[in-house]
């Protein structure tokens, strides 16, 4: 294994290990953790009542206090926030959970950087196109103009008025909104042609599928109710559609998700431990 691959494998393992340990290791050292009801809060300690006895938890660096919420879960609190009667779990911290905000922030920033990378990458591609006068290079000029206008428009958001606000309104209301909606509405046309072409009663199963589809499609719109409102409620199309969605559909989705989630665990585990083969982690000979 060369250095680069070793580095990737090592980093992947360490990052995964942090989140894994943060989940499985309790936030306080289990054998030194006391649990009970707060009796009194003193300047140097907190008194807890635990099964009839009283325990004193010193207020010193490295001690973590977790108060129970009404729903049974625990939240980290500072000693000053405690009041007598609180259900408390206190003990020396295992530090892993203390670092969580910092580690999370690191990844949030990393993910945000991907946007910047995207812009740089696009700028390089389009810059090269213009420099080398490739075919349709004027589209690349349009790209830079669009980016500039988009940035200016973005600055106008949240302002009470002014020309920046007007540019923002123009780009947002008159361009982005209609263009985005248009792309999405194409779906309706594609769905119609796809349904027309693919939904054929070729077999008994296809008949069942079309039957279910018609019930759900009509059940989802007021016309379904209008068509069947004279029948008993259980025979209304919306009721039948609800039954299909809540019972039949849910059974199928849950079954699929069991498989999908197990598959995700297995794939995650293989990547975490760098056991993945076939893609960019090397093939069977370990190259």
């Amino acid at each position, binding site marked *: 294994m060369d250095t680069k691959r070793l580095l990737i494998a090592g980093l992947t393992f360490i990052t995964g290990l942090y989140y894994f340990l*943060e*989940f*499985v*290791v*309790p*936030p306080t050292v289990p054998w030194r953790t006391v649990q009970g009801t707060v009796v009194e809060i003193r300047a140097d300690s907190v008194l807890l009542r635990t099964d009839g006895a009283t325990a004193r938890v010193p207020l010193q660096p490295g001690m973590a206090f977790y108060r129970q919420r009404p729903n049974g*879960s*625990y939240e980290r609190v500072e000693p000053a926030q405690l009041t007598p009667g609180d259900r408390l779990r206190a003990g020396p911290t295992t530090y892993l*959970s203390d670092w969580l905000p910092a580690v999370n922030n690191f990844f949030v920033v990393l993910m945000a950087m*991907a*946007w910047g*990378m*995207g812009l*740089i*990458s*696009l700028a390089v*591609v389009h810059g090269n196109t213009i420099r080398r006068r490739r075919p349709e290079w004027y589209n690349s000029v349009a790209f830079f103009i669009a980016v500039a206008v988009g940035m200016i428009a973005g600055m106008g958001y949240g302002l009470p008025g002014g020309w920046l606000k007007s540019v923002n309104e123009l780009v947002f209301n008159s361009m982005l909104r209609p263009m*985005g909606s248009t*792309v*999405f509405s*194409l*779906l309706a046309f*594609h*769905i119609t*042609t*796809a*349904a027309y*072409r*693919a*939904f054929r009663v070729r077999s008994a199963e296809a008949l069942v599928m079309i039957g279910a589809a018609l019930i759900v499609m009509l059940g989802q719109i007021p016309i379904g109710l209008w068509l069947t409102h004279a029948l008993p409620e259980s025979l209304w199309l919306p009721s039948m559609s609800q039954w299909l969605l809540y019972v039949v559909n849910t059974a199928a*989705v849950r079954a*699929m*998700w*069991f*498989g*999908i989630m*197990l*598959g*995700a*665990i*297995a*794939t*995650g*585990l*293989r*990547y975490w431990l760098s*056991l*993945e*083969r*076939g*893609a*960019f982690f090397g*093939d*069977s000979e370990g*190259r």
Partner: protein
Amino acid sequence: MEHANLQMLIAIGAIGGLILWGIGAARRGRPIFIRRIAGLNAIDEAIGRAAETGRPLLFHPGVGDVQAISTLAALGVLSHVARQAARLNLRLLTVTAFPVMVPILEAVIRQACESVGHPERFEPSDIRFIAAQSDQLALATADLMLQEQTASHFFFGMYDYTSLLLAEPGQRTGAMQIAGTDDYFQVPFFIASCDYTIIGEELYAASAYLTHEPTMLGSLVGQDYAKIGLLCLLLLSVLATTLFGAENPIVHALTGR
């Protein structure tokens, strides 16, 4: 649940253990059977069809970034397609909406070309970051299909509503199309518009199926045992709840609540 309880720890240990055991057993040479998946067999047929006409292939690795498990699974399929394309000297166009994906896609395809002894057939300009949003990517990809007269299309990975914006125009070009996704709600669209669709966890099995690599096959076996175990627990708790009501010691012991 913020931190694992005892039950969760046991479940993590058991599932992880079974998968690692499966991988270990397969590496030691235990023979493993994997059922036929028609859609995956059709991949070679689709590549063959492109070879007959000499037109390029198009691979769309979904709209998820590299953190999505389905994208990772799609990379396994891409590796296979790239290897076959390099072997037959076919152009393979790959598109993405994520700049961070570009170097990864490059690495996968370059490695595939090298593994069949044709490193010179790796063409970086055929890996394209066209747009940063999935809908724009779909429109640009549909345009690319027409411009390049692509012969076969592969849609593997995570998909959103743009699945149909890709597959319908693709269908009209007459190209052979194979899709694979774990997104339950995009499956019907792909079924309507593609020649073959790989559904749900079949996507995760794709790499193993195509490469017959023991590590991947062994992981599948471990997964199956874990699934059998989970099903048994599910049956047990359904039975207990039916017989004794929602609050019963068996369910409490299983969930730890």
